[in-house]
């Protein structure tokens, strides 16, 4: 395809002959550029580009050394994740590490129990999400909860119905329901009230 610049455009060109012997009219400035930009191929958006890249098959070339490093990284990170899940570090609510809160591990020895939860003022006495996990060797039930500074009343709910105060708590009080609540104090650094 031949290109003409606007200055050489005239009645003797092929186009001029095709449209007859009409008098020559100089085209408006920038017409050629506008037409070309209209027919030039459109650039796809970044989303489309990403889609195209993700759906196009690719070939990777790895040296044995690079492959070993990558494999070691995958094994280590997988192991960390497995360990974290097994030991409860990533389980709700134990992952709720809020600034200023203090991690507390509740432990209750009841090897024969089918389930144990901790309920108290910190969870509105609702056992949902506060089920404790039994250790396979000791038979004791544990859970880690991040608590804000202050005074917390709590008990253990055994088998979903029996109330048991913490035998290791230093302080307990009557609860008006015929049981005793254990009391836990957590002091922050800012002199919070109980």
């Amino acid at each position, binding site marked *: 395809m031949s290109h003409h610049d606007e200055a050489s455009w005239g009645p003797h060109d092929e186009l001029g002959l095709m449209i007859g012997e009409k008098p020559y009219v100089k085209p408006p400035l920038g017409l050629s550029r506008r037409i070309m930009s209209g027919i030039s191929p459109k650039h796809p958006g970044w989303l489309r580009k990403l889609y195209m890249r993700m759906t196009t098959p690719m070939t990777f070339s790895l040296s044995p050394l690079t492959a070993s490093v990558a494999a070691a990284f995958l094994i280590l990170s997988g192991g960390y994740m497995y360990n974290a899940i097994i030991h409860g570090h990533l389980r709700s609510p134990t992952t709720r590490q809020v600034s200023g809160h*203090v991690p*507390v*591990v*509740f*432990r209750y020895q009841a090897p024969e129990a089918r389930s144990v939860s901790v*309920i108290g*003022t910190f969870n*509105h*006495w*609702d*056992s949902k999400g506060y089920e404790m996990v039994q250790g396979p060797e000791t038979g004791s039930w544990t859970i880690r909860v991040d608590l804000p500074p202050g*005074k917390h*009343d709590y*008990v253990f*709910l055994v088998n*979903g*119905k029996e*109330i048991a105060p*913490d035998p*290791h*708590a*230093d*302080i*307990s*009080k*009557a*609860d*008006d*329901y015929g*049981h005793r609540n254990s*009391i*836990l*104090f*957590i*002091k*922050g*650094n800012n*002199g*919070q*009230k*109980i």
Partner: protein
Amino acid sequence: MVKKFKSPHRFWLAAVWLTIQAAAVGVAHADLIGDLCDANADPTLVIESLVEEAEATGMAPSTLNRLLAVGYRDSESVVDLKLILCTIVILEEKGLPPEPLFEKLEEGLGKRVPLKSIQTAIIIQGEKLQYAQTLLAGGKEPLADDVNVERIADLLDIGVSRDELGRLFGPAFSAPTDMRVVAAEILGYGTISGFPQRELNRVTTTGLKFRSLTPEWSFFIKVIQEARTQGIPDETTATAAVRTLAEKEPMEDLITALKLERKRVYNGTNRN
């Protein structure tokens, strides 16, 4: 929109009219609650209105749902459900802080206690709150000091006598209310942990006299516990505390004086 009154006379007329209207609304509301909580009112017909009234007191939807789930188990529990809702609404109407009432309700639900017993516990809690409110008001109109009311009511639970509280909040001391509450907490938690009464009286009296019982002293019980773990006699702890309070020093100085590990006092728990 701002309404301008041409004469003070009209302003006072408007003020009186608004007061009468407000009083009428209050009386009408009290009447409504009276009707809803009437012993002859059919629970199944009034529960919906009572739920709305309970929501208006600030009861969380989650708590309400837990209560309704238990209350609708059978026809007998619906009667108790009505009684619980009425008790909370009426106590809140009397000007008591509703949060401790909700907490007592949640505690009962969490412990799978029968609804009838929960209602009784809420009434007892209401009575403690009313006493605390009267104590803090000191013969005047009760102020909106819900936090301290709750703390005093809590102290009754752990066995601080009303006589003891009357002494701490009486004319013998001129310390601010917050400090008196801290003194009561030291006394209460110290007593149930077996700290000698005489030493507790020394500590609280010094703190109130020198007005040095800042909020952190509420955690004096943690110092007592940690000092005992380290084998320090209670008398030594009390003497060091009295000296710290008399010099108006922070509790941090007491921890240093007793050579305790700060981290264990602040965050350490016996559950770890």
